[in-house]
């Protein structure tokens, strides 16, 4: 065990995790905290107050130069020309067949360069793919992973806590700003992957401990990768390796909205006119049991497969994402999941499975005027 652990890459926050009682596990070549006090408690805490996730295992690729945008327009599925200055954009990276190599956020930085955040397990492949397609473009693709530690601060009280240690106003949702956080320059991004409000912080690894300690002092509790997974699943966000793979295209994964085929990104030709037989849907169990990745699904329209499953800490029932035939994709459709030999009843649901609660003070304040629905 100890020899294998030595080969794993360590976050600059490792000692802080140990001090907080983390259970550290190997994850995509890193040793990362999967939980502290417990997945369920950490999950609920993020929904109710604020939690922070060390996601320093995630990679970064920096693309710069006069034709950086043209190169990324060729590589990424979304329309880079719509990415505002200091903006954030979600997209997928596809191969020529339209198979998904990764799903990623790209930030347009104030120096004109772009920073693309990769999944740890795909980082080297993404970097090599991006650099390998840079020929003919006046653009430089750099591996910037070693320059950043990354913290996701999420939950209804996350922004307030980060604001308290930051000089300057936080960026809005899907915007970024370079700000002084806990005394050091930090790229603050109005993004996250939990379905809650919050920010993601990218800072030099040497500054990560200062930010962590300052957030702890503001009452933000650590949350592990276990809770990050259950939170993203309740929000119906995709996880690469589960819901996305080279075997699946973004259209069947329900990511057609980030695929702007007219930008002619690599893979767009293969996706032109694609009418997938299956589509990714959220579902919830109507009785006992917990669905898991790989469970077979039966529907009136044919078979399917679970790609993510868990017990939802907020709904207290088994939930998941599954590829099902188009004819069984309508919310309300009854389906059955084979959980290791036990048939479990489920129903296709609308996304998200769990929606962020509206801000409470206004709703509960008897003196405030009735809210106008827009």
């Amino acid at each position, binding site marked *: 065990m100890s020899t294998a652990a030595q080969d794993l890459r360590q976050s600059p926050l490792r000692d802080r995790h140990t001090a907080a009682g983390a259970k550290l596990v190997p994850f995509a070549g890193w040793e990362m905290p999967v939980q502290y006090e*417990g*997945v369920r408690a950490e999950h609920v805490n993020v929904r109710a107050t604020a939690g922070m996730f060390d996601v320093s295992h995630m990679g970064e690729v920096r693309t710069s130069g006069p034709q950086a945008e043209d190169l990324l327009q060729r590589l990424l599925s979304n329309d880079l020309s719509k990415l505002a200055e200091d903006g954030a954009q979600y997209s997928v990276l596809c191969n020529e067949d339209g198979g998904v190599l990764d799903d990623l956020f790209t930030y347009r930085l104030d120096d004109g360069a772009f920073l693309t955040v990769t999944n740890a397990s795909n980082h080297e492949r993404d970097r090599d793919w991006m650099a390998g397609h840079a020929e003919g473009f006046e653009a430089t693709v750099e591996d910037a992973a070693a320059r950043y530690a990354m913290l996701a601060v999420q939950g209804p009280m996350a922004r307030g806590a980060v604001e308290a240690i930051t000089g300057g106003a936080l960026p809005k949702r899907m915007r970024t700003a370079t700000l002084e956080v806990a005394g050091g320059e930090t790229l603050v991004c109005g993004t996250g992957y939990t379905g809650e409000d919050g920010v993601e912080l990218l800072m030099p690894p040497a500054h990560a401990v200062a930010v962590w300690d300052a957030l702890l002092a503001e009452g933000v509790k650590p949350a592990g990768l276990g809770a990050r*997974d259950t939170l993203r699943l309740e929000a119906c966000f995709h996880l690469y390796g589960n819901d996305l793979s080279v075997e699946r295209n973004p259209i069947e994964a329900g990511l057609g909205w980030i695929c702007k085929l007219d930008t002619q990104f690599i893979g767009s030709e293969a996706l032109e006119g694609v009418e997938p037989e299956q589509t990714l849907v959220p579902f919830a169990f109507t009785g006992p049991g*917990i669905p898991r990745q790989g469970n077979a699904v039966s529907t009136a329209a044919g078979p399917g497969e679970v790609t993510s499953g868990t017990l939802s800490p907020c709904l207290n029932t088994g939930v998941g994402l599954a590829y099902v035939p188009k004819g069984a994709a309508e919310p309300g459709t009854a389906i059955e999941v084979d959980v290791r030999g036990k048939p479990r009843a489920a129903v296709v649901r609308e996304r998200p499975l769990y929606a962020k609660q509206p801000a409470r003070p206004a709703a509960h304040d008897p003196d405030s005027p009735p809210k106008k629905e827009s």
Partner: protein
Amino acid sequence: MAETYPEDLKYHPEHDWTRIEGEEATFGITWYAQDALGEVVFYDPPAVGATVSKDQPYTEVESVKAVSDVFAPLSGEITAVNDKLSDSPELINSDPYGDGWLVKVKLSDTAELESLLDVNAYKGLLSS
């Protein structure tokens, strides 16, 4: 609860314990097993009357993240299951040797007992 391994129990290397009373035995998982698994959120008991075989999985416990097989330390037939766990699977974490027991089994071969570990041997396994 704190890490404990009662002296009156016998242990299986797959982190199961058994309490022997004549030809009947109670099975459960050890403190180490429940700690490694994390908070147990789902447990679907096996059927009374089902046969269990030593070293073979006979049921599963589930945390939010994972499913774990539970191995039978001895062979026999299930005579009772802990129904309380369907509603309160967290008892497996809070009281693994008491209210968190899993099944009672009528043993088919008491000679198998000799292969189990006593508390010191099991603790030795954990620290190796």
